[in-house]
């Protein structure tokens, strides 16, 4: 009797894995929960790995202008041409730490059609005059402002930003407490559609990603990209 029961749990479990979301739910008792480790076999995929880029060299750059260089494991940029990253396509996440000097201003751009940054979605990294009520970091194209205002970390410390580029839109988490208890998945979530409306041009369906330093100097470290 017992053997048949265990078998049926395993069989039911494999059926669920085979057909995805559960149709008819099967329940077991306390003592049957993973009493046999085999009952717990899972076919779920791992999360994709992240690739650390721009740590030792510029090999992750599609085009590397002279205003960008690697020094002591940091990517340093000054005012000038954008740095376009290879392989930032489809659904992906970019995570990094950044640090701007007094005059520093810049953005991370995504969905730049053929590298045309003027038509890209630009996510503000640091902002002069942020204290004076201007757009804060995480704002888009200078027109879409976050509900909450985020400033880059001052006094020389590094700020962190994560950008999730998804099918529907882009999510930005600047200097957040992702480890905190009250993380709010909805803040700084922008739909492509809304960005198009407010920016006055169509966001490209595919496009390139990269960094732009428009004033002063910017430094980046621990840059990783995860392609889903």
């Amino acid at each position, binding site marked *: 009797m017992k053997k048949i029961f265990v078998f049926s*749990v395993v069989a*039911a*479990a494999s059926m*669920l894995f085979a057909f995805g*979301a*559960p149709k008819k*739910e*099967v*329940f*077991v*008792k*306390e*003592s*049957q*929960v*993973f*009493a046999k*480790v085999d009952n*717990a*076999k*899972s*076919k*779920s*995929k*791992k*999360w994709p*790995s*992240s*690739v*650390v880029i721009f740590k030792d060299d510029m090999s992750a750059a599609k085009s590397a202008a002279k205003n960008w260089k690697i020094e002591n494991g940091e990517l340093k940029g000054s005012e000038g041409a954008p740095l376009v990253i290879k392989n930032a396509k489809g*659904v992906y*996440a970019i*995570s990094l730490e950044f640090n701007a000097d007094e005059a520093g201003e810049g953005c991370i751009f995504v969905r730049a059609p053929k590298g045309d940054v003027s038509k890209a979605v630009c996510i503000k990294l640091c902002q002069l005059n942020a204290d004076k009520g201007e757009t804060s970091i995480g704002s888009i194209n200078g027109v879409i402002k976050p509900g909450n205002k985020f400033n880059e970390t001052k006094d020389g410390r590094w700020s962190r930003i*994560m950008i*999730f580029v*998804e*099918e529907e839109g882009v*999510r930005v988490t600047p200097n957040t407490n*992702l*480890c*905190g*208890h*009250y*993380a709010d*998945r*909805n803040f700084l979530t922008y739909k492509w559609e809304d960005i198009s409306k407010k920016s006055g041009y169509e966001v490209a369906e595919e496009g390139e990603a990269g960094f732009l330093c428009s004033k002063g100097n910017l430094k980046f470290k*621990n840059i*990783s990209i*995860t392609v*889903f």
Partner: protein
Amino acid sequence: MNIISRRNFLQTAALTGAGLALGPSLFGKDEVVDKNWKSPHANLVSPDKKVRLAVIGCGGQGGVDANIMAGGVQFAAFADVDYDRASAWFLREPNVPRYRDYRKMLDEQKDNIDAVLIATPDHTHFPAAVMAMNLGKHVYVEKPATHTIGEARYLKALAKKTGLVTQMGNHGHAYDGCRELKEWIEAGVIGDVTEVHIWTNRPVWPQGVPNPDPEKKFEVPSTLDWNLWLGVSKYYNYNPDYVPFDWRGMWDWGTGAIGDMACHMFDPIFTAIDLRGDVKVSSESEGATEFSCPKWAKVKYEIGASKTRPKPVTFNWYEGKCRPHLKDLPDGLFKEEKDIPHTGMLYVGTKGAIIDTDDYGTRMRLLPAEKWEVFRKNRPPKKYARVPDRNARMEFIRACQGGPTPGSNFVDHSMDLTEWGLLGVLSLRLGNKTIDWDYKKGVCRGLPEANKFIHKEYRVF
């Protein structure tokens, strides 16, 4: 709890390491230890190696715990159902394998893992801990370690059987307050405890919420695996009102304000006096449904005297808008209603009372104030060994390497404490029925309908 005794114990600081089986690092700098200490636990990691730790639930509290353990461990693998919530850890440790499903992680990485930190929502603690322990891994499980009383008893038995190192995440248990309260009460400072009142402003998350509307469908975020988040729970459609964090106000996944806070706020008194045994538990509440925990609640435990408990004890819990008023408390403790703090733990004995206004038991004083002024200069001597740096997470890690058994281990302490809190949950889930708890058998006398909450069913997922 380790007792200090001049003859058998010595300060680790005095140990030089030569000729001793265990080096001082296992005990921490200021802990008082047994020089003959030999860990009774299985599968110990050599003290000169780092404990290889896997984390299940890396966002929220798991991130906090992992951060505190980070210096003493080597991260072996991460599992989280939500890339977004876990990304801070995934990106901080880009070379550590990262999984959606803890089952796959444990299965594939079992040879690379010594210990597992489990900090998922409450309903997932048990299945994850059972699997990890069955694979011979030490476990640190966030509080409340279990979702039902049946689970608490099962894990206690499993910990006994396997001999693994265990610790629940009621980190306040490693603070001095727990030990001081026990020392004060055992020294007779307030006589025999007869009354306990514990109150909190929680829930500070939604409780008393409507049942889910099956017609209402929200798009699941691309970075979340909702079926895995539900795990052993009955299936519900995704709703952003449930995750993160707010699931604790819903019975399928959390245990409400009492379950959330009991492991912290009940801990000092549960440590100080023996509250194990048959008990009557009654409750009042508003807004609870099959799905949602109540908006507010009061729970009363009545436990008789025993060999280890000289007097019967009434133990009162108040949450949400409830708190004790002057009329509920013995005369002379507070002059006016406004003197009663917003949150607190009040222990009343035959000779006096102690109030604590910190959820983790670190702000105790005697009542009334005049008594405290005299007492504070003349406290009872230390009897119980303190935990180095009051750090429950590192206490666990050191125990995995042969250090002292953690205070909130499953066998001696935390599963019984969890059960005590969950008895209140049981009365609430039964629609405020009074329960007559048979401690030996683990059943409510005359209430067979309670069984489905004592032992729940688990979805195969």
